């Protein structure tokens, strides 16, 4: 029996800017079960990070504004929490790691000082036991000689090592949910693999759920249970990872998969890119936001934005067209 850890319904976030209102997240709904790994994929600027940061209320306000929706975490709506209540949840129940490990650590504080902070705040540990725990954590994420490195500053660590430190910090209080915002994007390929492997191993140890934001479908395949594909602030497809790769049913997912470099493809074949650019979120689109770039587009797409249609258990897509046949649904 799987229990739902987090149920997000109709989440909407917008930014009021001098140029107008940017509709970054336009009513997304999804859930995540305990211990499950869900990947959120999509191009840059399609609302992945904003929607996950909305869940932790980390959107700067103003200009940000989470204006609708609920995010029920263990029978409690996160979006109704006060800042004080959120501070107790962040880092303890739900943790987040970020894209760039080079800038995510404070340059003037020692690593030990930064790791022990959350331990002392959330778990009320004494300075000595927090330090002891920090050494264990650094060991767990594979930092050699952790007792000595505790007193080092971030600039004394390499990029991969810093991301390991970030992971140690995020996992210090054994959260139930980890939101990983493109944690491997700024790292080179071998380090990426190490980080993915590390997170996968820690997931087993801590039994935590993971939301893994990425634009790299290759990373997703290895570790996610389910995949959510986002475009222009909408969820356009949601499926188990096998279903998504076997039977992608949104043109955008198809295009993303086609853009993926593969070792088994002939070398003289060029990578396919998606023509055009993501839509300007300043204007609310009429019809399907992907229609201008879609090769399956039909007249209805330009008139009306499709809602998610259930295709089977755990597989839903928001498209008027059946991409296998090219015929309208």
């Amino acid at each position: 029996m799987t229990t739902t850890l987090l149920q997000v319904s109709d989440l909407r976030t917008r930014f009021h800017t001098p140029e107008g209102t940017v509709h970054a997240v336009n009513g997304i709904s999804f859930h995540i079960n305990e211990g499950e790994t869900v990947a959120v994929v999509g191009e840059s600027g399609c609302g992945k990070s904003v929607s996950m940061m909305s869940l932790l209320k980390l959107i700067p306000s103003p200009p940000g504004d989470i204006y609708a929706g609920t995010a029920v975490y263990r029978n409690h709506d996160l979006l109704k929490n006060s800042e004080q209540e959120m501070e107790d949840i962040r880092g303890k129940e739900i943790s987040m790691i970020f894209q760039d490990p080079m800038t995510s650590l404070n340059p003037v504080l020692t690593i030990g000082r930064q790791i022990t902070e959350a331990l002392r705040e959330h778990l009320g540990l004494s300075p000595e036991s927090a330090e002891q725990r920090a050494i264990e954590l650094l060991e767990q994420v594979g930092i050699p000689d952790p007792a000595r490195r505790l007193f080092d500053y971030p600039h004394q660590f390499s990029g991969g090592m810093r991301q390991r430190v970030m992971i140690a910090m995020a996992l210090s209080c054994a959260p139930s949910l980890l939101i990983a915002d493109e944690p491997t994007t700024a790292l080179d390929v071998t380090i990426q693999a190490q980080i993915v492997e590390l997170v996968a191993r820690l997931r087993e140890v801590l039994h935590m759920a993971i939301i893994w934001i990425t634009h790299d479908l290759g990373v997703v395949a290895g570790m996610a249970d389910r995949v959510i594909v986002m475009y222009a602030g909408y969820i356009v497809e949601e499926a188990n990872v096998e279903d998504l790769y076997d039977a992608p049913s949104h043109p955008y997912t198809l295009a993303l998969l086609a853009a993926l470099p593969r070792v088994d493809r002939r070398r003289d074949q060029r990578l396919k890119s998606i023509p055009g650019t993501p839509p300007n979120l300043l204007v609310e689109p009429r019809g399907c936001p992907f229609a201008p770039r879609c090769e399956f587009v039909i007249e209805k797409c330009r008139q009306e934005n499709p809602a998610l249609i259930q295709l089977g258990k755990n597989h839903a897509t928001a498209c008027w067209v059946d991409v296998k046949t090219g015929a309208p649904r």
Partner: protein
Amino acid sequence: MTASSSLSVPQLTDDLSTPPLTLGQLGWLRFRRHKMALFGGVTLILLLIFSIGGAFKYAEKYANFNDTAQRLKPPSVEHPFGTDSIGRDILARTIYGGQISLFIGFMAVLIETILGILVGAVAGYYGGAVDAILMRITEALLNIPTIFLLLVMAKFFGGKIPEIHIGARAFSGSVVVIVVIIGATSWMYLARIVRAEFLSWKEREFVLAARATGTSNLEIIFLHILPNTIAPIIVSSTLSVANAILAESYISFLGMGVQEPTATWGNMLDKSAKYLDTAPWLWFFPGMLILLTTLSINFVGDGLRDALDPRSRAI
């Protein structure tokens, strides 16, 4: 691969395992190379020894003791700096005046720094309406000429505060008034510097990362961002000490500052104005001390500015 290069390998790892320099060590290395700053630092220490150590040679009673038979005597063996218009020993008075002037300089800057950091940090971090209100107040205060503000406040509050005792010394209440007034009228520049620093640092990803681990706003302001802005704050505060000492001199020179018989370098100048040409030793010694102090502090401030600049990586 030669034998010598393979021998150098253990030495190389040894080099790598020595910890890199901290900001403090790096700063000291650079500061040492700044000759004027070193001169300023040494002079400042000598001035402190002069005004604190001198107190062991001359009692405060002696500094305030007037012997009308000894009026306006030029420097001699008995009175190395001469005597003033009512026969007090100028050397003893510059010693005690130095204590007050330096005390005022440092305490006023302490107040200025605390106010400046608070206003700047809160405005810069929270932004929006809080920022707008605090910065309009700051700008409004900046638009009032400081010298008038100082004089009006000195006149208004002067004489309302009783004497206070710190250790063996009794301070005239006017000293406290001057400290508070100078501190309260000079924090605006620092507040703007701190605000600008906060505006840029708060956008860094580590601030978001700190928030994502549940750190409260106050901790982010004071434990995460403030340590990053410490270099410009130190530099600005150091330079402000010189300004505070000068401000005290202005007010005291105009007779609204620290009241007699408590000596300060500023009010000693005031009393010497009538004897500019007839008894130059009256103004020469306190004047030189003010000049030397502010000059040294400015040199030290310049040295610190170069030493603590995070963009300069040269040693």
